[in-house]
């Protein structure tokens, strides 16, 4: 028998086999554990995770009143008992040096560091009143992504996959992409399956080399050889099944088939040369500044098209205790154009209605200065600030061109419509058709959920 004939007969065999007990086994790998609790608006989520804490007063929350207070401590009444990671509570105010402009019909004010997003501001809902409980990076990141500052809880993507399964036959349902030069401080904690089965874990794509580990055949081993070996493995497994009568473990073949299809499909997914020059340019692929985050955004759209449920893009880091002007400008340069292009591209393809895009970090930054050096004012930075910061959401289920929440005149605390990160999580699940109070998993005698025992859907930002 030639190799091609052999492969053909194997396919027939697989077809027969998949029609029997195998079909349900294959199915259970891909289909969700549950259906949505109610009709979903969004099928997929792209979370643009801005690791380290971007500065809300320099990006999204203009505070002209700060100019009057520049170089003075905040009024005592405002500071309260706030704790910071590094600075003293009496640190001096540093008014933002950015200019804010209204662009678009909705008139959302956005900093001049984000010209591309400003042009698409009619597509987003900006929330200026997000709060978290955590003042340090690792617990803050776990709080945002897993709903608890303690390690060991499942991440949002894992919950989404647990709730809905994936629609992709050839790719993992929860994928994580990195940019900016380093991994997030909470590392694998932001995409862990926690106590959920490990099938719900995020699959990190690497930023260089093989994007998925062990996706390439061993050197000198071609695809036909791999196919033949998988066929041999299937024969071995089939014989084992016949001898032992154990149907259940035969479903393990399904994972080899997915692996094999991933070997085939992932390179196609990653081959951005198939995109038009205009698309590639819009994401900034032809500039070294925007190429990395741009590729990740474009990959995210291509994954959405292929049915991937949750795509987490981590861009690290915005943690600018010093040199904020220079480094924030750089991060904005790297991320602004691609993020805006992603929104526009999804809109043009009719995918924005079924894709939820979220932008945000684990906290914001203080309106006060850190690292004051009078001879070198450009080295100033800001400290961590979980007491009021900004995030934006767009697409599936979210209102367009809206601002929600208000901070006080200093951008220090929330003045109106406080939104806790648990509320953000509840809202994301809501857009996916999941009730955050019903999406539970029993572990060690307790029903756990993403939002712990809190959180409520922010109805005001829904479409």
């Amino acid at each position, binding site marked *: 028998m030639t190799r091609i004939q052999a492969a053909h007969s194997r396919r027939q065999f697989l077809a027969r086999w998949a029609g029997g007990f195998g079909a349900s086994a294959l199915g259970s790998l891909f289909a969700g554990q549950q259906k949505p609790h109610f009709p979903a608006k969004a099928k997929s989520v792209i979370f643009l995770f801005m690791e380290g804490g971007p500065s809300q007063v320099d990006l999204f929350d203009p505070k002209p009143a700060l100019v009057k207070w520049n170089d003075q401590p905040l009024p005592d009444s405002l500071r309260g008992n706030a704790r910071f990671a590094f600075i003293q509570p009496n640190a001096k105010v540093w008014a933002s040096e950015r200019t804010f402009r209204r662009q678009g019909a909705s008139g959302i004010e956005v900093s001049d560091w984000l010209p591309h997003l400003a042009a698409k501001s009619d597509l987003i809902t900006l929330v200026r009143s997000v709060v978290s409980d955590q003042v340090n990076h690792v617990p803050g990141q776990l709080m945002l992504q897993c709903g608890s500052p303690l390690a060991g809880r499942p991440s949002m993507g894992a919950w989404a996959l647990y709730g809905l399964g994936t629609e992709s036959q050839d790719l993992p349902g929860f994928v994580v992409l990195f940019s900016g030069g380093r991994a997030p401080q909470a590392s694998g904690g932001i995409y862990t399956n926690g106590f959920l089965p490990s*099938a719900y874990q995020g699959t990190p794509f690497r930023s260089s080399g093989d994007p998925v580990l*062990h996706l390439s055949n061993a050197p000198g081993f071609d695809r036909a050889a791999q196919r033949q070996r998988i066929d041999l493995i299937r024969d071995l497994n089939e014989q084992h099944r016949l001898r032992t009568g154990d149907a259940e473990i035969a479903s393990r073949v399904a994972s080899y088939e997915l692996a094999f299809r991933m070997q085939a499909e992932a390179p196609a997914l990653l081959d951005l040369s198939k995109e038009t020059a205009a698309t590639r340019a819009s994401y900034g692929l032809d500039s070294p500044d925007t190429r990395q985050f741009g590729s990740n955004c474009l990959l995210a759209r291509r994954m959405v098209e292929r049915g991937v449920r949750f795509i987490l893009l981590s861009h690290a880091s915005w943690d600018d205790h010093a040199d904020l002007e220079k480094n924030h400008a750089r991060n904005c340069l790297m991320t602004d154009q691609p993020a805006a292009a992603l929104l526009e591209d999804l809109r043009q393809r009719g995918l924005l209605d079924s894709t939820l895009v979220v932008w945000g970090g684990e906290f914001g930054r203080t309106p006060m200065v850190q690292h004051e050096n009078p001879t070198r004012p450009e080295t100033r930075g800001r400290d961590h600030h979980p007491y009021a910061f900004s995030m934006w959401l767009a697409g599936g289920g979210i209102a367009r061109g809206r601002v929600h929440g208000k901070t006080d005149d200093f951008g220090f605390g929330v003045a109106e419509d406080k939104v806790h990160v648990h509320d953000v999580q509840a809202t994301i699940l809501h857009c996916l058709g999941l009730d955050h109070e019903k999406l539970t998993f029993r572990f060690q005698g307790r029903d756990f959920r993403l939002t712990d025992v809190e959180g409520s859907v922010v109805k005001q930002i829904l479409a």
Partner: protein
Amino acid sequence: MRSILIGIWAAGTVSAQTGEFFERSVRPVFAEQCQTCHNAKVRMGGLDLTSAEGVAKGAASGAVIDRADPGSSRLLRAIGYDGAIKMPPSGKLSDERIRAIRSWVRDGAAWPAGGAVPGATAFWSFVPPKAPVVPKLRNERWVRNDIDRFLAASWEAARVTPAAAAGRLTLLRRVTFDLTGLPPTPEQGSEFLADQSPQAFENLVERLLASPRYGERWGRHWLDVARYADSTGADEDHRYPHAWRYRDYVIDAFNRDLPYDRFVTEQIAGDRTGSIVATGFLALGPKLIAERDKVKAFYDIVDEQIDVVSRGILGLSISCARCHDHKFDPVSTRDYYSLAAIFASTKQLADAESNPSKLYFTPLGPAEEARRYQEHQAKIAALEKEIEAVYTKQRQRRAEKLRPRMADYMQAAWRVYAKGEKAEPVAGEAGLDAIAVQGWVRYLKPHGERIAHLDRWHAVTESTVGVLAAEYQEDYQREAAERRKSTARKYVGDNRFFTDVNGAASPFAIPEKLRDAMASPEAKQELASLRASLDELRRASPPEPPLACAVAEGKQVRQQVFRRGDHNQRGDTVPRAVPAILAVDGQPEFREGSGRLELARWLVSPGNPLTARVMVNRIWQWHFGEGLVRTPSNFGKTGEAPTHPELLDYLAVRFSESGWSIKAMHRLILSSNAYRMRSASSAAHEERDPENRLLARFPRRRLDAEEIRDALLSFDGALDLTVGGALQKMTEGNEKPFTNGRLGMDPDSTRRRTVYLPLRRSNLPGALALFDFVDSVTTAEVRSRTNVAPQALYLMNSPFVTERSASFAGKLLSGVPMPAARVERAYRTVFGRPPQADEIERDLHYIHGFPAGPNSLEAWASYCQALIASNEFIYVR
């Protein structure tokens, strides 16, 4: 006076009719739903619902019956789920039961004396186990020992028939993996088949139990419970450099069959019993290093220890009572803080009060010895610094000389890496230093990872390279000038290019291996003399004194209840004591030191209802995949009830009465027929007992991560069977936070058994995590056994499995001349059985179809890898 009144009210006003109603419809509800938590002993929320007096007294927060307006009694609001308090917490009562209690309250809530429902407060796991009657069977044919009688009794009732006996080779593979975590070798297979004695299996079990491999497998089971790892995890993940001593202690304890009561005692209070290393059980938990609230950080450690002791040893979760009375089990915050008092009176850190990030290491030898060693190490470090300073000076001098032509170096480097020219001639032509040109090639050549401050450079072209190089040099010079100008020495603001060019890894720096050769004559002399002193100092160094990560007795703490877990809101002072519900002989206050030794003794005392049950259940689970209680760390109300309660108690009683010997439990369990059944399931089994709760067949299981790695190393004999010791030096692995450098160790870099790999909590080896290794963050009760595509990719394509397959294939090719015999050898090694004729035929067909030819290493390597990737290898039946 008050009690007299109550007495009259209770006894005097109950008519025969209401009495009957109470006994029929009210008392059973209280008994079943309320009294486990609300009784005279436990009194959750201060409320006792077992007597008239208790009802009349009400809860800590006030009366529960409103005599003036019975309809609005708090008891009724609670059971009606109307207010903040909703009782019982496990779910609202049926309407019928609520109506009954409502009408009883309206009629005066009279509580007839006496008639307490026997055992009302007794949840099964809180009652000490008693030896049950062994069931009598109609048919004893199948039975080998009492375990079989208990199981068979349940089959007779459910009308299922047990699976047939497993084949001998299946049994050999099962028990060898089970007891040692390794596959049987082909020789062991032949030996076992040849042993015709009726005691063959028992002999095999004895041989395996006596092997040091046994402790490596079963010690690891316990390390799952002990959430063992070699670092603090949480935020900064500092190393526990001496953790391995605890790991080795555990392995050794299993190998020498240390009685479990002593094993527990030593792990809780080994500092008092001469086995301080054992207290690593308490000391090696995850710890927050950078928490700013020092008191909270300390009580987080205490909490973590309460959790591992309560869930790991007692099978009860007590930690939730840190903030509120337990919602489901009768454990109050008082109970929690009584235990917290014990661990808070324990020395946990080197200096808990001022520096909670400094870990505590106990010298195992004399303290003086440890101090001498540390002082000597400091001297060595100082001298090493001096040597480094000489090199630094050399480097700076060289850099100063070369720097003025920086732009030329950059251009030259570009020609080398971008145009493919050779470094020597390019340097020669331009009058540059060739070594420095190569340094710049290494620095400037793009390699995968993006470096932001070189982005501009990486976009360079033939026409821009000159200008750009000059720009970079100018930028450098401007920064240098500015820094000279300013008096402030330290800049946080960072010009990365400047730092790189100026730093120790500068492109101008002398490569490590040329540092000595290129030093100036004076520097050479200086270095020689410093080196000689260093060698001298190193030779004179006392050996590293043994240290352990352990706990010790601390200052006795007067513990108060922290309301809602907040140490700023202090409540009543509590004694050091055990939880009320488990206190069989009252609740004596522990007075000796921290109370840990008394706690340990209580844990293994005859009256303790949980310790023995929990451990025999774990032993059962590690043999059968599932415990008799399928929530092995939760024997409380939210846990699962035992599938075979009598068998569990039978085993628990045997365990404690026969001296807590774990190996004796193995012998008992392995000599049952239950262990020797086939794993194949029949249609009848699938229908009547799909989850195999009746254990009428042996459950098959996927190999654990360690078993997969160790087996792959064993096939060609590469596995290094050295026992114990540290694989990393004390000083290794203390890298900067949040880098992948936190990997404890690359598993592929050693051939030691997996149990000996150092484990970094924040970065467990990927290949282990892929096959569901425990996360080591909290005590683990069971490993998940997943089946995902990345595992398939790993087995098909990873360098480790590919290398292992090739090495095994190489051994087959050189050791076995005939192809069919090779297939046979491969089956016996990987699957533990000989192949059948049609299997040989098919497999040789695969090998013959290989383009490289039937005797090629490629063909056999690929074939071996297919066997390794198949179900028959990765599952034990």
